[in-house]
């Protein structure tokens, strides 16, 4: 029973693991692109958390249909929220990549250590 309870939180376990993997990559990697990939993974974990919590058991997409009553719906609000967060994440990633391109243009490298040595 205990084991099943733990497994029941499968999505939340995955959320925690992805979160840590992403954060580890951000901190540990010295290549700037790999850092951004880590950041992206880190953010995706949060998306998963929001999407998981809106699921109602037996619920479907919240579309009102004629002739169907007592239908259980999943909560649409977190999905909308996370859609916004995804957009924010994409623009952050785009800006980060643009900065990396400019770093590469002016330093000729995207390795953190070589950049530090260059100045």
């Amino acid at each position: 029973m205990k084991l099943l309870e733990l497994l029941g939180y499968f999505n939340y376990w995955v959320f925690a693991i992805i979160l840590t993997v992403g954060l580890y990559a951000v901190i540990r990697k010295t290549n700037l692109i790999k850092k951004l990939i880590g950041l992206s993974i880190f953010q995706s974990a949060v998306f998963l958390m929001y999407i998981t919590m809106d699921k109602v058991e037996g619920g479907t997409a919240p579309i009102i249909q004629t002739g169907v009553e007592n239908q259980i719906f999943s909560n649409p609000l977190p999905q909308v929220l996370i859609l916004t967060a995804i957009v924010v994440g994409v623009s952050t990633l785009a800006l980060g990549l643009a900065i990396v391109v400019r770093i590469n243009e002016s330093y000729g490298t995207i390795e953190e250590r070589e950049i530090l040595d260059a100045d």
Partner: protein
Amino acid sequence: MLSAPLVVLLQPRGLAWAGATVAALASFAIALALTIAVLDGQPQVYAMGGWPAPYGIALGVDAFSALVLLVVTGAGAASLLAARPSIDQQIEQERQPLFYSAWLLGLAGLVGIVVSADAFNIFVFMEISSLASYILIAGGPDRRALPAVFKYLIMGTIGATFYLIGVGLIYMMTGTLNLADMEARIGDVVDMNPILVAAGFITIGLALKAAVFPLHVWLPNAYTQAPHMVTVFLAACATKVALYVLIRFDYLVFQAKLADHEVQFALFAMPLAILGILVASAVAMFEGNLKRLLATSSVAQIGYILLGASFVSQAGLSASVMHIFNHALAKGGLFLAVACLAYHYRDLRLDQLGGAAARMPWTCAALVVCGFSLIGIPGTAGFISKWLLISAALESGPWGWGLVAVILVSSLMAVVYIWRIVEAVYFRAAVEGDSQPAEAPLQLLLVTWLVALLNIFFGLFPGVPLELANSTATLLAGFAS
């Protein structure tokens, strides 16, 4: 009335600077009008799209947000007014319209954070303002701006994501995103553990954004490498707004409902604040670059604000809110003076600035006035908030005297580093033979002096900000007890 964010979102073309400045001045005027309305009594609330509060997104302005709103729009308007000569020097002509529109986006984001009463909306506005400020900083002329901004981007995004996790956990337990509604519904939550975790995530995330020691490593480099006027704008308000959200969230939502939360918060915030004050002041004492010195001292000043908040008392809160206002004045003025200096001095290391006072007497006098305000000399704005902070520390219990000692020691350190600047510009011989008087452009100088005089004015007559700070403290402490 609250359309400030929308007005500001308009994309200026052609007369970019004029458009941006008019928009910023307009939002400053709106902020003033709002403040007067709030001082009259009732906080202002506006339901976006006509949906009532717990369901729709509400915007609200009370005493706290009115004060921070004044700081943000004031800093935006003042820095934009003065920006023209300095920006012309640092940014190429054809990129300027884009630059100014990024500036306005940043301003709109910051204003949005302050007026929003919705946790998720705050996240979105936070990201808008952060993305805009990454662009602004990356506009710096030196290539070292790029790694600095990359670091800021990484840490800023991690901070915002932590905040998002916290908000998600609270939403999971309470089913609401409206701050006031959240406060009411947290009482019904049976299992408090997720809320506790959320409090942790939100505090850490916002502390990252606010550059609370030891999460401040992004700040000195980013501020040093940014274009000078951008530093004025960001140093005066960007971190303050993150602190504003931190204080508001913590007092409004968590303090009243989490058992022992005031002890946890104090134990978390106070050591960090003290360490930040002492370490950053010590680093600033030995810093050779003028801009970097002032940026490091910002970290110490953020420590003061956090220290005031960590007393969890009415006096501490009003000291802390007061310091948000006064530090913006002092540091904004200092960086404006730095921008004036930088108009003629490309290299801002202290040993290169010898003889500057003879060349630019007005600029250096303004630098000294704002420096005094930063130290907290009586008669300047900085004195008022340090005085409030010390009296709050004495009230706070047996450790009060130790905290007073910390504040005094760090004020002495501030005397040391401000004196190093004064010594460099007034008493050191010029590096080259060139000592022709050459003041900064009048536009830049006038705004600098305006801010410097405001420092003295609010030091002698602190009435309005003090009233706002006190009613903020009553408001927030009312939730805390």
